[in-house]
Structure formats: structure tokens, C-alpha cells
């Protein structure tokens, strides 16, 4: 029996049956370039921008071409269609002419772009974001299924009766610690609760070049339901792990045939500093 077990083990080790990966170079088609809109309207001064570019062949080593439009502006729909004009500060990057512009939660905005005589529009409300009351941390030793390190908890009150969606980011000493992922939050199961969310990973000084302290900043951006679904889809595509699902483009809110999204968002941030013991 023992011999059989051992034989089984040897065979299991022999068989590389865990999912394996290998680089391939399939022949890919290329379609004519399509306009890509990467637009954010934020509730903080200086954060609003519109970036325009075009799609490129998938294997192209060149960065995607940034493009200039004929017209870019935003209408404040609930404020007599007040027009916020944009200016191109560098190729493909547009910012409000009025440097003091910021979006107001509760308002609805419409983006208009004219590019190569074709017009593109997108409209979205700017939703408020629950305020991050505080960020705390606790040190935990190594456990059965737990890594040793500092565990971060974010505290905030989820407003009752309305659905909230947000995109969360964590910065350590100013650096986004998961630049390849989109971490989304929705309150469908916790509506109206006071939440203390402990993040499922540990921070360690050694991972950030052994500084004397770690400045941990959590940032939460409010999203509309459609934007949340768009970023869910985008997250799947950039992770590239949806191996069983037919990949598809996330549903954009831009009319006219462009890719990308016009995101309206309010932001909340909070910081804590962890000093080396």
C-alpha cells in the first residue's frame, strides 16, 4: 500500500498536469484604426482630462498613436448646458481651459468630440463617493494561510438606500502597488453598513526598499453602474485570465463608434504612515 502511494506520488510529480503556459505567436489580423477616448471628469481641480488615441496592431511594438481632434468640450447638463472648453496641452491630451474647473457630484455631464469630421458623444452623471474616515493597520505574524506583515483596513460608512460603486487604489510611498489590476467595490451586499474592510494581503518594508516608513494611501473613485461594468470588463481583458469566456470589448458609453469610456467620478482619499519599529 505504501509502495503504491509512493508510486502515485512519483507519477504525480512526473506529470506536469497543472495548467502550463507557453508563449505563442499566432497570425493576427489588423483592422483600420479606431478612435479611443480615455476621459475622466473629476471632482478635484486639475484632475479632469480627455486623452485621444487610435488602436494599433496588437503586436506592434510602437506606442499607440495619440491623435488630435477638431473639437473637444463638455456640457454641464443640469446647469443650462454650460460649455466647458478644452485645450490640447500636448498631442492627444486635452484639459479644461479653465484650470479651476472641477465636477460637482449630483450633476450630469456630456462629452462632445469631433474627430475627422465624425462626432462622438457620451453622457454620465457624477455620483458622490462615501468619505473614507480613516485607514488603520495591524501587524500579523505568519499563520496557517496567512503571510506575515502589515494588514491595512479602510473605514467608511456606506450610504443607505443607494447603490455605490467604486474603484479603489492603494499607494505605498506614492507608488500604486497593483498597477496591473482594477480593484472594484460595490455595496450590493453591505448597503448602509459601517464598513471596516481589511485588505487581503500584507505589506512589508522589505517589498518597498526598506524605507524608514511607509506612507499608505487609499483612494476611492466613485463610479456609475455602467462605468463599474465597463471596468469589470476591462479588468478581465487586461488580466487575460478569462480563458473560458469569449473575450469581448467592454461596453462603452461613447456613441459614434469609439472605444474607451467617459468616466465621471468623485474621489476620496485617506493616509496613514507606518513607521519601522
Amino acid at each position, binding site marked *: 500500500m505504501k509502495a*503504491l502511494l509512493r*508510486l*502515485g*506520488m512519483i*507519477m504525480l*510529480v*512526473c*506529470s*506536469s*498536469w497543472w*495548467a*502550463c503556459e*507557453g*508563449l*505563442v*505567436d*499566432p497570425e*493576427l*489580423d*489588423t483592422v483600420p*484604426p*479606431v478612435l479611443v477616448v*480615455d476621459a475622466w471628469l473629476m471632482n478635484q481641480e486639475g484632475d479632469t482630462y480627455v486623452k485621444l*488615441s*487610435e488602436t*494599433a*496592431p*496588437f503586436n*506592434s*511594438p510602437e*506606442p*499607440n498613436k495619440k491623435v488630435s481632434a477638431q473639437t473637444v468640450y463638455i456640457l454641464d447638463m443640469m446647469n443650462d448646458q454650460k460649455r466647458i472648453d478644452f485645450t490640447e496641452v500636448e498631442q492627444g491630451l486635452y484639459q479644461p481651459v479653465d484650470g479651476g474647473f472641477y465636477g460637482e457630484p449630483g450633476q450630469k455631464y456630456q462629452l462632445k468630440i469631433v474627430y475627422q469630421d465624425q462626432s462622438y458623444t457620451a453622457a454620465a452623471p457624477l455620483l458622490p463617493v462615501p468619505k473614507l474616515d480613516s485607514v488603520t493597520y495591524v501587524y500579523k505574524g505568519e499563520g*496557517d*494561510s496567512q503571510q506575515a506583515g502589515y494588514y491595512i483596513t479602510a473605514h467608511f460608512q456606506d450610504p443607505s438606500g443607494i447603490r455605490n460603486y467604486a474603484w479603489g487604489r492603494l499607494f505605498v510611498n506614492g507608488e500604486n502597488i497593483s*498597477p*496591473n489590476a482594477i480593484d472594484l467595490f460595490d455595496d450590493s*451586499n*453591505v*448597503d448602509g*453598513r459601517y464598513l471596516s*474592510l*481589511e485588505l*487581503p494581503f500584507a505589506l512589508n518594508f522589505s517589498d518597498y526598499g526598506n524605507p524608514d516608513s511607509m506612507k499608505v494611501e487609499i483612494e476611492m473613485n466613485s463610479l456609475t453602474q455602467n462605468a463599474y*461594468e465597463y471596468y*469589470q470588463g*476591462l479588468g478581465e*481583458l*487586461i488580466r*487575460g*485570465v478569462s*480563458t*473560458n*469566456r*469569449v*473575450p*469581448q*470589448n*467592454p*461596453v462603452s458609453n461613447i456613441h459614434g463608434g469609439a*472605444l474607451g469610456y467617459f468616466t465621471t467620478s468623485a474621489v476620496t482619499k485617506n493616509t496613514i504612515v507606518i513607521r519601522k519599529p
Partner: protein
Amino acid sequence: MALTRKIFLSILFVLCLPIISWGQGGMLDKSVSLPFKNASYTQVLDFIREQTQANLIYNNRHFSERKTLRFPKKELALRQVLELVCQDAGLEFQIEGNDILLKKKVPPVLYTISGKITDKESGEELIGASVFIEGANKGAVTDQYGFYSLTLPEGRYQLTVSYLGYKTQKSSLQLTENKLHSIELILDKVELQEVVVTSDKEEIDANVKSTQMGALELNQSTVQKMPALFGESDIIKAVQLLPGVSSSTEGASGLVVRGGSNDQNLILMDNTPIYSVSHVMNLFSVFNTDILKNAQLYKGSIPSKYGGRLSSVLDVQLKDGNTKKTTVSGGIGSVSSRLTLEVPLVKNKSSMLFSARRTYLDLLVRSMPNQPFVSNTLYFYDMNFKAHYKINNRDKLTVSGYLGRDQVGWQDLFGNSWGNTAASLQWTHVFNLKLISNLTLYSTNFNNHYSINLVEPLGYLQKYDVRDFGGKYDMSYYMSPNHRLDFGFEFIHHRYAQGNMVSTEDPINIKAKQLDPVYGLEMAGYVSWEQKVSPSLSLNYGFRLSRFEHVGKGKLFIYDKDEVVSPETNEDNITDTVFYAGGDRIHAYQGIEPRLSARWLWNDHLSLKVSFNRTIQYNHRLSTANTLTPTDMWTPVNKYIKPQEADLYAIGLFGNFMGNQLESSVELYYKKMRNLIDYKPFANQLLNDHLETEILSGEGKAYGVELLVKRKMGKITGWLSYTFSNSTRQINGINNNQSYPSSFDRKHDFTSLFSFNLSKWLVFSANWVYASGVAYTFPVGKYVKDGFIVPYYTERNKYRLPPTHRLDMSVTFYRRMTPEKKNESSFSFSVYNAYAQKNPYAYVFRQKAGNPNETEAVQLYLFTVVPSFTYNFKF
């Protein structure tokens, strides 16, 4: 009574004598000239009288004055003229001296012989055994209860009973009354010599002679001989090697039959439907080969007794248990072990069977040093229980049960557990030698639990389950040698618990959520008529009438749109909700499903078959993936979600060669499916009670050619099969409403499988499979959003993954039971994917990890070489 019959028979015998002597007399060869091409009966009889000088004795009432007879020639032998006259008027002629007597045909006295064919050693009923009457050229094949019935004229007969792997048994029989004749066959331990069977035994040439097409049978020994992945031979894996059937991806246990989806297969375990047949990682199925008796796959001309699924039926019968002696059998494998116990309760009448197996993948993984899978869970177990009691020759009661569970976990962050439970009670009753019935009452349940605990206080457990209580009553009436009638009805009460969610944390942070279950009543009645119209033409025609009622307690959302399942509808279109009390009918569908097939026999070795099938399915499995995943959810039809429907047309040529040693077939099919559904892009599928707003609906088409050459006996057995197929979908809201290849569409599929009996104790098996690439979606560009490089997709499934192929091999050493060695054992060593082909099941297009400004394409593949062993024993 017996005396009258004897007198009657003597008279008949006397009457027959002149017919026999006539041939010698030569009177029948006398020619009769016929002046007209058409003549009335009276005219014809006058010609005969005039030209032969014979006395004609007949009753005028037997002839219609107005009717005329046509003659092919102006001059015919008397025999031919008399035959023409008699044939048309339903008479027969007799000659006594100079008298010609024309009288009504006396039908021969027919008696029925029927019974059961069983294994002598274990008492197991044998499915598909052949009973053949030498001389009369008549035969029958035992049904799923081991029962056969034959109706023959009185007489003395030689009966030959045969079944592959068993010694053929001959017996003689005097048929003077209806007879119950059960036969026990002895297992042929030396089944290795080349057997050449030339007589047309029903079992052997069923390929050519039955009206059935698109049907394939597998039994335990075939499945056990195949090379097995991880040493665990599996019926689902074996079925995937049949023409027209494939797995959606490498190593998966789903069945894709003739372009149908994974959810369109009715999989029965002892007449009880099983909702999810997959175990851990889709590598194993719920069927334990140790107790497998017989499996029948219908992928075309589905008999009308089966319904409720669109594309195929896999009817798996498990062993009943040994009624003669206690046996213990089992196996120890590299990743799993099995044990089966069979105990006779009353000798020859009753027994019980208990079987269990468990994988120990997790134990092995944990015992390996330096690996990252500590505290991961990965195992399944399942158990079967069965007991039966033969009350008498006519009645048999069987109870059976199944319980299986899978556990997968990753640290304490994620857990998934799913399983089926099934229980059934069967009563087989023989009303008389011609009419047998089977009543099945069952319950089946599939449930799935998910626990997610990624963020500390937000841990939750989510549950989903579907439960059926069902009953069906099937009857077979062997009316005459040329007619068989199958009829019956079925009733199912469904409960689809669409999910609930509870917090696993204390204090509770997650709000509990519970969706109300959805109830449905499904009912059906069917008739199927098997008719031998002439020696060359056989028909099978029947239909199934099915109905589904969505019933309360439940609710129905009212929408402000006519077309609810559409890309434009969402939950904002709900204007009202109607609540229904328990038992209220919310919505109903019904339909008629014709099932027709015909066979034209050219000669004993070649036939042509055609069939048409309509099938209706009143539920859908919602899945985001192409393979079976635990998140898949069954949902019944409702007012907005319509039943799936399919029409299948097929035509095929079936031939047997080399004295029936080789079976071959070519089948062409065309299938059209309606009301197929798919999720909307990024649909909200969890805990959603208005799934109609999350789905899209459309059509599917599939066509293909399937070639099969099979050898069932001799030293080398196995098959070669080739399938060409094409399967598309057109769903409004997907791919700009244009038709696209389905996600499991492969053009070419080739399988070769053989088993070589090298000696009494050594069997070598191998299979090689090749499949052209599956339809896949590749990006046609990339773009930048929020700093991420994102692949850009246009047309769905326009491209193909590379072809896949692999060779599996196994060698099995047997130690047979002999008077000295009381036990039987075997050791089998298998290698899956022997030449380590990296068969991709997916391509992933993504930004490079090291350099996020660049992109890469990565192929994912499951296994390269997988060696494994199994030690099997029986005593």
C-alpha cells in the same frame, strides 16, 4: 380445448399435404393461356377450368365481381395464375386429385416465448444479448431489463443465445404454448481466440438491421480497457471518443454532441437524470466504472421514451449486484481508490451493492515538499447504493441511491463544493409474455456552494440548487414478430432554488439574500411503434407530447417592452410584479416531438437509414464559460425565456463486413436549433431573479458527416472514426447579430482506438486522437486606457486555435480466476499524452508583465505526459 386444437391441426396438416405433393404432380406447371391482359375473376376461373379440366371449388363471396386481374404475360403456368388469383383475394389454394380448392387463408397459430437473459455467475441481467431462432431467421435483442420476447408459429425450434464475452448457448424448444424461457449465460474467460461469426445474429448485425441510427453502446469491459487519465477509466471520456461527440476543451468532462451545447444532454443513471456529471477539475465523471453495466448513447433518432434535452441521451445502467455469492472488488490508483461490495440477500432473488471511491489528490499534493498548495482542498468522493429483490418471475423491485461531493478550496479565501444526490425506486413488472412495464420514481438534486472570504469582514457563502421529483412509467408491448409498441408517460416536479447568500463572519456584515425558488411541472406522454413492414423495410415512428408549466408559488415581472429577451431590455423596463400563490399556473408551454426513422435493407450486410427528430428542452444552463463550471446555473423557461427546440435530419449507410467482424457506418446530419440563449456581455448572473434581462436568444445550426469503422471481436478490437462538422450560432445582440462559429466548433475530428489481446493475461490498448482547432476569438488590435494596454476584439470566434492531437497508451496484466487462484486481479499502467504534445485549450492576449507597454500571446495547456497506474481486484 387442447383436443379441438389437435383436431384442427390435423385437418390443417391434411389440407397441406396436397400442396406438398402438387409440385411432384406437375399439374401446377401446366400452362394457361390468357387472351386478355385484364380479366374478371369469373373469366379467369373459366379459363382455368376449360384449359386444365380441373374442378374448381370456391365460394363466390370471396371474389368481387367488379374487380379485374392484370396479367404480365399472355401465357402463365397454372401455379402463377392461381397465386395471382389468391394473392389478390386473400385466399390460398389446395389440390386434391382433380379438385382445386380456393379457400380463405388460415393464419398460423402463434405463441410467444419470452424471458430474461442473465449472467450465470452474478445473476446480472444482460442488456443487448441476442436470442436467435435458427431456421426461422427470427431474433430479438434483450432490452435494458434483460428481457426479450419473440412470437413464432407453433413448432420445434433451436434457440441460440449469445452475448459478447459470454459463451454462446444453444437449446432446443418445443413451442406448443406461450412460454417463459429465461437463460443464464456463462462468462467466457478465454475470449481471445478469433471468433468468426457468420450467422446473422440480431446482436451482431444490429448495426445494419435495427432502425436505430446515431446510437452507440459501450459496456464496462470496453471502457476499462481504454487508456485512462489518472488511471480512472471513465464512461464520459469514452463517449467523447465516439464520432459526433467531443469535449468542449482538452480534458473537460462535458459532452458536445453534433453541435449542441453542454446542457443539451440527458444523462441518466439508472433512469434518474443527473444534472452535473463533472467531478473536480472536470477530469472525472460521476460514473464509477466498477459498477457500470451498460451505457447507450443516442445522438440521433432519440427514442420517444426520452425527452427533456435537445441533443443526446446517455442512458447509463449500473450493476444490480451479485445474487449468487458475496464479492468484493475494487481498485487502487495513483490519484483515487475504489471499493465495491456485493452481497446476496436472498440467493438468486435479492442482493445489495455498495460502492465508494475517493480521490486523494490533496493528500498527495500536501505530502510533497516545497510546493505552494498547502491548505488547499481538492478532492471528491462518491457512493452508490443499490438493492433489488426479484419477488417472482414477473416482478422485480430495485432501490438505488447516489451521493457525490466535490471540494475545492484555496487557503481560506475561496471554497467551492458541489455534488449530486439521487435516489430511485424501480418496479419492473411482466404483465404477460408480450407486455412488460417499468415504473421509476426518483428524486435528483444538484447543489453548489461557494464561499468567498477575500476581504476580512465580508466573507459569505452562496448556495444554489436544483431538485426534481419525477416518475415515469414505460411499457413495451411485443405485439407480433413484426410489431412492437412502446408507450408511457413521465411527470417531473422541478424546484430551482436560484440562490441565497449568507455571511460567514461574526459580526455579520453581509446582508443575507434569498431568491425565491422557481417551480415547474413537466409532463410528457409518448408512443413509439416499431414495425417490420417487409423483410427489407422497417419503420420506427412515434411522438412525444410534452408540456411544461411554470407554477407558483412565484412571481412574474411585467415589462414595458414586447420583446423582453433582447439587447435593449434591462431591469429598468420592469413596470410591475405579479405574485402567484402555490399551485397557480404562471405560464405554460407544450409541444409535439415527432420521432421517425426508417431502415431499408439491401442485403444482410448493407442498409440505408433515414430519421427525423424533434426535441424540446424546457430548461437552460446559463454559463459564462464554454466548459462546465460550478458557477453554471440551471434556469427553467418562463413567460419570456422560451424552450429550446431542435430538428435533426439524418441519413446513413450501415454496412457489416468480414462475417460481421467489421461494422461500419456513414451518417450525415443537419440540425437546426431554436431559442438558444447566451448571457449578455458582462451580465449580472448572481442572485438575480430577472434573468430574462441578462440573456440574449437566437438560433443554432449544425451539420456534419460521421464515419465509423468498428471491430467488436477478435484479438484486436477498437474503432476508427472521423467527423466533419460545422456548428454556428446567431444570437441577436452578439457579433452584430451575424452568425458565428460556436465556441466548440471543430471541423475535423479523428479518433483511433484499439485494444490488442496479446495473451490471456496481457492486453495492450492505445488511442490517438486528432482534432482541428476550435473556433476562437483573437484580437485585431490594441489600445491604451488608463495606462493599461487592452486587446481590441471585433468578430467572435473568427479564428482557430491550433489543432490538437495526443496518444494515450495502457498495458494491463490480468491474473484470472482459476480453481487454484480464487481471486482475480489486474494491474494497469497508463500514459496519457505519451509524446507530450502541448495541446492548447486557450490563448490569452495580454500586456507583458515585465514591460507593460508591450503585449504577448500565451497558450494555456493542461497536461503533457500523465503516467498513472491502477491495481484492480475482485474476490
